[in-house]
């Protein structure tokens, strides 16, 4: 590493959506900025596509700040060009390729709920959260929707494995329940005055009207507002968790039918998920957020 200049962080999140990837992306942006690495969230990499992929790679190379971006296989389908060289370029350019991983069944369940209930991909404010949380009435999710999300997930797994190297898999549990250590393990920066695990917990409770804003929350809001002024085109707001697993189960009336369907489709990519695994996760999650 050069003693004269810090290298740029170049981080790419590879996501099928509904695996807390937006949260992860913005958290990393906050974390790196906090550690004095001016970092911009490019959000969806493909949104920066203009003429061709070379121009996009050139824009990335010209960046004077560290970059956190995301890429999804399904977003590439809108661009009628060969993708392989671009993906090779991304694989070389981005030094850290992070793949958030979560139980495939729960991911497919979340994706299906979003499609069926027409939820926004993410909510970034108390109002937006309430609108989604309190207006979602328990319903049956059609099997066809669930099945298409399973196929979507499988395609994502195959795409990530075949197109990228040196991947860093981050489990959803580690990201949520042990945020600070997870990021420290990836980037190596430790700070006594940043507690992202507690920040996430407090945001969760605050949006549900169960807690006041903590000091961590206020500090994050200061960062968010000052960053917005400096870099208005880069999104800095953290996304809020919409539903816990137990809340999802209460909103999906045919949960057992979906579970049985998933169990009949397990494969190399769709791992076996037992009901006791789900129950454990419900207990762990509710305990973490102080709901039990």
């Amino acid at each position, binding site marked *: 590493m*050069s*003693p*004269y*200049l810090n*290298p*740029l962080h*170049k981080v790419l999140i590879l996501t099928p959506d509904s695996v807390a990837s937006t949260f992860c992306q913005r958290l990393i942006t906050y974390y790196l900025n906090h550690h004095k690495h001016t970092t911009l969230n490019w959000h969806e990499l493909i949104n920066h596509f203009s003429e061709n992929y*070379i*121009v996009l*790679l*050139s824009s990335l*190379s*010209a*960046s*004077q*700040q560290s970059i956190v971006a995301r890429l999804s296989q399904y977003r590439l389908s809108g661009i009628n060009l060969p993708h392989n060289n671009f993906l090779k*370029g991304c694989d*070389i*350019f981005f*030094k850290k390729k992070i793949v958030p991983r979560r139980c495939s069944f729960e991911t497919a369940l979340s994706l299906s709920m979003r499609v069926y209930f027409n939820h926004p991909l993410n909510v970034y404010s108390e109002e937006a959260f309430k609108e989604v949380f309190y207006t979602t009435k328990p319903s049956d999710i059609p099997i066809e929707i669930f099945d298409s999300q399973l196929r979507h997930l499988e395609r994502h797994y195959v795409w990530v494995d075949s197109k990228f190297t040196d991947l860093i898999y981050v489990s959803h549990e580690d990201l949520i329940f042990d945020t600070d250590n997870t990021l420290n393990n990836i980037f190596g920066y430790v700070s006594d005055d940043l507690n992202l695990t507690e920040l996430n917990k407090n945001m969760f409770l605050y949006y549900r009207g169960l807690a006041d804003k903590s000091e961590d929350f206020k500090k994050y809001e200061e960062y968010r507002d000052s960053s917005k002024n400096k870099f208005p085109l880069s999104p800095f707001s953290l996304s809020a968790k919409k539903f816990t697993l137990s809340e999802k189960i209460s909103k999906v009336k045919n949960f057992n039918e979906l579970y049985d369907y998933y169990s009949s489709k397990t494969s190399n990519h769709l791992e076996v998920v037992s009901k006791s695994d789900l129950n454990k996760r419900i207990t762990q999650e509710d305990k973490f957020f102080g709901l039990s």
Partner: protein
Amino acid sequence: MDYLNYPLLKDTNFYFWGSDTLTNPGTTSQHDKSYKFNPRHFLNYSYPINYQINSSGFRDSEWPTDLRDVIWCVGDSFTAGMGVPFKHTWPSILQYRTGKRCLNLGINGASNQLLKNMCLQILKEHKPSTIVVMWSFFWRRHKDPWELLQYTNSSEEEDYAFFIDCYNKVNTFNEECNIINLMIPPQHHNLKNIFQCDPIDKGRDNLHFDYKTAEVYVDHILSKLI
């Protein structure tokens, strides 16, 4: 002619710096056959590169008004730092390590004739204590003052003799000035008074050296500073 004011750079900027991009990966010439742009290396490069030009037309911060106690760093794109961050250029590292203001007078594509003219003007007008000059490719010629002639039909012997003439004119002009002579890495020569080292790292464009090689040059300069 004012060789220390390089207004043309502002116009030619896009051409020169533009060659360090993914979309326009450098120019090739009959003299630079060893150069091969490497997109993998380009994309893999970790440091932010920004070409900022001062009001005199050089890649440097603004120069102080009092130029009596500065080190003059003269050279071509290896001095200007094409393909590397400004902080990785050898004049910048020299400034960091000496604590003295080191002016970067690197000009992309500079010929030895142009470097000679710049050094002579510095010697005449500023009575410097130290000039460090990193000599360039022997084959390069300029149509005075700034127009680079990419292709000449001169022989290697003629090119070499032309360089020796430039070198002697600078080094014999004023014995009170400490002139430290360096040679860019790709230019082979047998001159004992001119320090050269093999590149141990490469900038983003895979041609110009980066800070590790620059540090070796700076080590040599420090050993020669009076």
